[in-house]
């Protein structure tokens, strides 16, 4: 598999992952034979424009969507074998992550901690740690409906980590955030890397991805076009930035569409 190094443990393995959707006009391939590996302490950026298949890939990782073909393996366990065990090991920061407006951040964190099977003592310890690290103490007891976008995102990040998972998936984590809010996310991802977690970040903000990620997978129409570190991508494409690489992919695809 591309990028596979036997000396570093692979945490996430996708092998020939495919997902098709039935529409009135026939089958649409949202993800097409995607294979990739993410290791502990690595931030993998799954990049692509809207509709590239990023979110669909994350949902298959969590077992929220069943793949049409292929396999997902997290920490040696296949999603098709033990879904609950997989979900226990994964934290998700979803692009469309809303909060329960009538609960406070404290109640939200307690709820999810219980959902992930933490005991009362573990819940209390973990929440105390997260409140301190994520700066939630100023609004911990307020209803989430009254929080700002940045504050809500902090709560979402804390929720994803409440059970200290070794794998964290982030889907468009800076959506709707200002500069300050985005910086919180960047710091958060840096911490995740330092603590040895395997992270997949899905985003179409290529400049942010360049700051956040160690390795990149460029996705277009569900297929992985290029993969590697920044240096490797530059060598493969002869281009210097991710924006240029994507424009090249999109341009090539457009020419194929019109038959040039």
């Amino acid at each position, binding site marked *: 598999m591309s990028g596979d190094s036997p000396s570093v443990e692979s945490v996430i393995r996708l092998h020939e992952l495919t997902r098709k959707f039935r*529409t009135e006009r026939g089958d649409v391939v949202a993800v097409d034979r995607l294979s990739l590996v993410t290791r502990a302490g690595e931030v993998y950026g799954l990049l692509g424009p809207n509709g590239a298949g990023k979110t669909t890939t994350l*949902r298959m990782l969590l077992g929220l969507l069943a793949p049409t073909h292929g396999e997902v393996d997290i920490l040696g366990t296949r999603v098709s074998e033990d879904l609950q065990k997989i979900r226990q090991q994964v934290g998700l920061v979803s692009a469309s992550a809303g909060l329960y*407006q009538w609960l406070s951040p404290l109640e939200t964190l307690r*709820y*999810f901690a219980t959902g*992930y099977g933490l005991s009362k003592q573990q819940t209390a310890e973990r929440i105390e740690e997260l409140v301190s690290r994520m700066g939630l103490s100023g609004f911990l007891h307020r209803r989430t409906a009254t929080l700002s976008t940045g504050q809500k995102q902090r709560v979402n990040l804390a929720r994803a980590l409440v059970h*200290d998972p070794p794998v964290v998936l982030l889907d468009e984590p800076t959506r709707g955030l200002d500069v300050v809010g985005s910086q919180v996310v960047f710091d958060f991802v840096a911490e995740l890397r330092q603590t040895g977690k395997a992270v997949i970040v899905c985003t179409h903000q290529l400049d942010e991805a360049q700051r956040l990620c160690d390795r990149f997978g460029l996705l277009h129409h569900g297929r992985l076009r290029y993969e590697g570190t920044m240096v490797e991508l530059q060598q493969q494409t002869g281009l210097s930035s991710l924006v240029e690489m994507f424009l090249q992919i999109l341009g090539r695809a457009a020419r194929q569409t019109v038959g040039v």
Partner: protein
Amino acid sequence: MAESLRHSKRAIGSRQVSWWSQQRTFTWKELCETLRDRRTTVTLFVMPVLLYPLLGLMFRFIAVGNAAQLAPEYRIAVETEQEAAWLSSVIQAGEQILQSRPLRSGLSSGTTPLEPKVQFLVPNDAAEFDLEQSVAEGNADLGVRVSFSERQISDGFPGADVSVLQAESSPQSNSVATHLRERLAAANLLTAVNTIRQSGKSFSMPIEEALQWIKPLNQTSAILGLLPLVLLLMTVTGGVYPAIDLTAGERERDTLETLMALPVSRARLLMAKFIAVLTVTMLTGLMNILAMSATVYALQMESTLFGESGLSISLIFKLLSVLLVFSTFYSAILLLVTSSARSFKEAQALLIPLMLTTIAPGLVIMMPGWRLEGWLTIIPVVNILLMARELLEETLNTFPATIAIASTLLYASAALSLAARLFGTDAVLTGSRSGLRDLLRRPRDVSEVPSTAVGFSTLAILFPMHFLASGFLTRVSGTDFSLRLIVSAVLTVSLFAGVPVLFLKWLRIPLKSGARLSHIPVRIWPGIVLIGLSAWPWIYEMIIGLQSIGFQSLNASQMQQVQELLKAWREVPVALVVFGLGVLPGVCEELFFRGFLLSSLRREMNTAAAVIVSAVCFGLFHVVLAGGAAPERLIPSTVMGLLLGSVTCRCRSVVPAMVLHGIHNSTLLLIATFNQQLANLAVGEQHQSHLPASWLAISAVILGIGFAWTAVATRTQTESRMLIPESQR
């Protein structure tokens, strides 16, 4: 972030908290979400507080107005004002005499008959007035011509010769004439009595009469008949918003994805939502009852609406009991519908036809003449409405009520299971075009075992079918026993084997895995046979014990029928009876209960819970007999179900349970056939004796040997949690 977050290679948690503690937290969150929402609060508290006083005032206004309008009007034509005045005085005097009759028991207020309004028609020009013509043309109900005489009614009040002109074949004219004659006669009578007494003679009426009002049976206030429908509709409105908010609302608020990412089954998450919706629905019902009680009490309308006993605690308790059963069912249905919705708007659109289908039968059923019996006991909503009405009228029978409640709860279980399948599925999560229709779509892939939703759905379909089939069997009771045997066998095979096999075929599930028809080693069989031969005394003793404390279901007429049945079956070859009533039911029932149903329950529950649930369902089915119910069979049948379920799980196959059940049934049938003393084993005579202690001791020993043998023989096949592919959860 100043300090690093703690690093670990594996997540913390992972079953550090108990199932109940986790489920309590899930339920608490759903209740918080819904009860803190102001929209729920408005529906729950404000609407009943505003609505019932308004309705009460409107009702009172209309009722009083109608009462005034409903008093009959009598038109009496006379020729002069003097005659009109004299007649009016005589009618009033006669009325007073009639009203002074002693009453044995008084009426409650508001139930005295309405007094007619008498209107005297006096012509402006007597010379041109034709009294006969006036009556003939219908301008007056009665004509009266008064010729005053010298006779006296009392001092200064003359008597008269009165000619009454009554229209032929006119009920109204007849009523007016009767009314007038009664009062004239009363006035005459009083005059006669006074005259006798004035003459110095003592006199007492030879005949005294007194009036006693009797409340007719089966007649209740019209409002009481409508009350169940009104309360159910008001209760339903309370559950609609929470059901939508907790399901479709999750998707609209973008909380569904993170919720589905939890390592918790959809069924558990939905159960928490169900409890929240049920709680709000019941609270709404309770608030409605309280608001209604307060309104009725404040407007002093309790006896008008609810009869002599008024709105008692017992009546409120009955209403709440019915509401609980209905709310359980309706909350499950609401969640089923809203779980397939992708937005609030879509959920509301789906619920409108649902609510209409609730109201329409409700209005029809509330008309007189409908009873909770026959096929009506298994029709959802209709059965509960009828049960509620008969409960309030105090005419409810236990058997149809049991069927109504059991079928309603089974429908609720099926609905919840199906809702758990729909909630958070990829179709709903991603918004692709599918939903409720997916439940009916044949799956493309082969599965190993049926899902829990399918299990409960099959149960919900099979129970009413079993009830109807039992009823059908009573219709062939008068025919040849062989024919009855054949019909019974066909029905048993069709229901308990045919229905699950059809479902397995439709779902592309192999019969062998779907019904757990696995091969078992020969060494297990001796243990199974020993258990099958020795369980019957304990089941028998349980039935006798229950009958001795009052659980006796059959009356004398039904006992007679059973005696005749037993006599008839002795005329038929024993092998046929044993096969038709013993082996076949044993095999088919096991195919369904321990093969199909137990397998489906194991997908969501642990072994013990699945065995218990399947055993209780088994017991419930055995309560339903041809032509009635036998509640004393519930516990023994459930115990038998526990035994059979345990054997199935231990042997990892349903085949031993089939053999065990067949042997057990056959043993009972053979004993009944050949031993007169135990001939009534299955039905229980009043003076049925217990088995000798030696029999129980021997059976206990054999049973113990059988258990031990089976346990040892299956040691290498210990039941572990069935590995269900996660894609099939």
